[in-house]
């Protein structure tokens, strides 16, 4: 598969690296410690256009082909230290904006998309619950019809962006007895009466991306803000997961390339026992593995772009990409620290944060075990 960038993609990629170096590297050690969300950087990212890139022009977006968006994301990952902010951007794009693009009515798109595209609104996704994570469709949050409204009651867990969110694409069941067939999608105004952040959640990594538990207590959602048909929330959710699984790790390609370059520099310059440490085969092997991981991850992620552009289903391919890239991302984080020795372990060198940021990738958008289940099902097992 040809992974050379077109001139257009190279332009976007390099612009993204440049943008990220200038706007997404602001004292990230402190921001990570304090779990600070960088609102100015969010706005700058919106001005750069990233929130509008995959959205069709007819809906006010930039209408970039998905492979170009992936090239941008790779560039942002390479240039940015603030991977938490990029994670927030990804959650906003793939699990909030894109479901609206794909399933929203013209009226919903008109009312909700402008703010999501220009960055004045932050989007979130409320699917997981305290008792239903991998088994997400066993959700308990109820949606009861009351005239021209639904009334939502329940608790959503691990909601990325919740503390700063304005719009939540949330899922609730109209009747738990219906199982997956009761699950229905809704566009919830995060400032509506009855929506509360019950608990901010502190994380190991991606700490600049705020997360919280959200309680819906008698939240009245107009019927016109139901997303998709009643009982068809699974389709909405699955399509958003396909987007997220396929594209969220594009940033990691950039991080992995940066790690490799830093480790190569270090392995050449750091001398022990009278020679550069890169001359020790066991150190060199780590760099070889890092290169191999990067080279096997990139085609998997760019393949999603091509499949999406061709309008093809990519359930299995997205699961494969998510599974392999997240595994490689964590291994790269560990190897980078090892190559840097004790320095790699220290905050100042900003490699330990990469590792902490990486661990979540084997969990969010479905754990690695669930990705394997999806692939196995795709293989007819």
């Amino acid at each position, binding site marked *: 598969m040809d992974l050379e960038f077109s001139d257009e993609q190279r332009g976007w990629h390099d612009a993204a690296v440049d943008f990220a170096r200038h706007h997404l590297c602001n004292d990230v050690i402190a921001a990570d410690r304090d779990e600070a969300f960088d609102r100015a950087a969010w706005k700058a990212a919106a001005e750069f256009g990233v929130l509008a890139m995959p959205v069709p022009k007819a809906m006010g977006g930039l209408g970039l082909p998905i492979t170009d968006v992936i090239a941008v994301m790779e560039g942002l990952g390479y240039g940015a230290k603030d991977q938490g902010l990029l994670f927030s951007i990804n959650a906003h794009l793939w699990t909030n904006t894109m479901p609206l693009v794909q399933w929203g009515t013209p009226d919903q798109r008109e009312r909700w998309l402008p703010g999501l595209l220009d960055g004045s609104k932050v989007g979130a996704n409320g699917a997981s619950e305290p008792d239903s994570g991998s088994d997400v469709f066993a959700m308990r949050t109820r949606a009861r019809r009351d005239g021209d409204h639904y009334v939502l009651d329940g608790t959503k867990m691990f909601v990325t962006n919740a503390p700063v969110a304005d719009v939540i694409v949330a899922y609730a069941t109209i009747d738990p007895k219906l199982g997956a067939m009761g699950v229905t999608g809704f566009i919830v105004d995060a400032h509506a009466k009855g929506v509360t952040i019950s608990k901010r959640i502190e994380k190991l990594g991606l700490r600049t991306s705020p997360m919280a538990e959200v309680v819906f207590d008698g939240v009245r959602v107009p019927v016109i803000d139901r997303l998709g048909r009643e009982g068809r929330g699974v389709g909405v959710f699955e399509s958003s997961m396909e987007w997220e699984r396929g594209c969220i790790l594009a940033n990691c390609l950039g991080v992995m390339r940066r790690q490799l370059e830093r480790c190569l520099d270090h392995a050449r310059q750091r001398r022990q026992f009278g020679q550069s440490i890169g001359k020790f085969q066991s150190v060199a092997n780590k760099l070889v593995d890092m290169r191999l991981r990067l080279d096997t991850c990139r085609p998997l992620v760019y393949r999603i772009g091509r499949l999406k552009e061709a309008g093809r289903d990519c359930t299995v391919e997205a699961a494969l990409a998510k599974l392999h890239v997240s595994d490689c991302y964590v291994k790269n984080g560990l190897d980078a620290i090892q190559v840097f020795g004790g320095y790699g372990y220290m905050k100042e060198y900003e490699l330990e944060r990469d590792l902490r940021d990486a661990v979540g990738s084997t969990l969010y958008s479905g754990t690695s075990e669930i990705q394997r289940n999806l692939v196995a099902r795709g293989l*007819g097992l």
Partner: protein
Amino acid sequence: MTPTPDAIEYELRRYLLAEFLPGESPANLRDDTPLRTGGILDSVATLKVVSFVEQSFGIEVEAHEAGVEHFDRIVDIAALVRRKRGR
């Protein structure tokens, strides 16, 4: 083209075998084989069947119609299709 009654069962059987029972002998899927209660379809898989039925037979299935009552056996699904098409 409007499918004949038998064609509904035939299309359903073909789809179910290809999608959920690859490699299975067609003889093992009868029109009264339990799909939901027999563990062939979970509720997410049933939703796929619902979408297939809607697209293939031009009907709309409401959430409350997609339960075991209408989607446990090929005969039940075909009966629902016929009833809806007859309207």
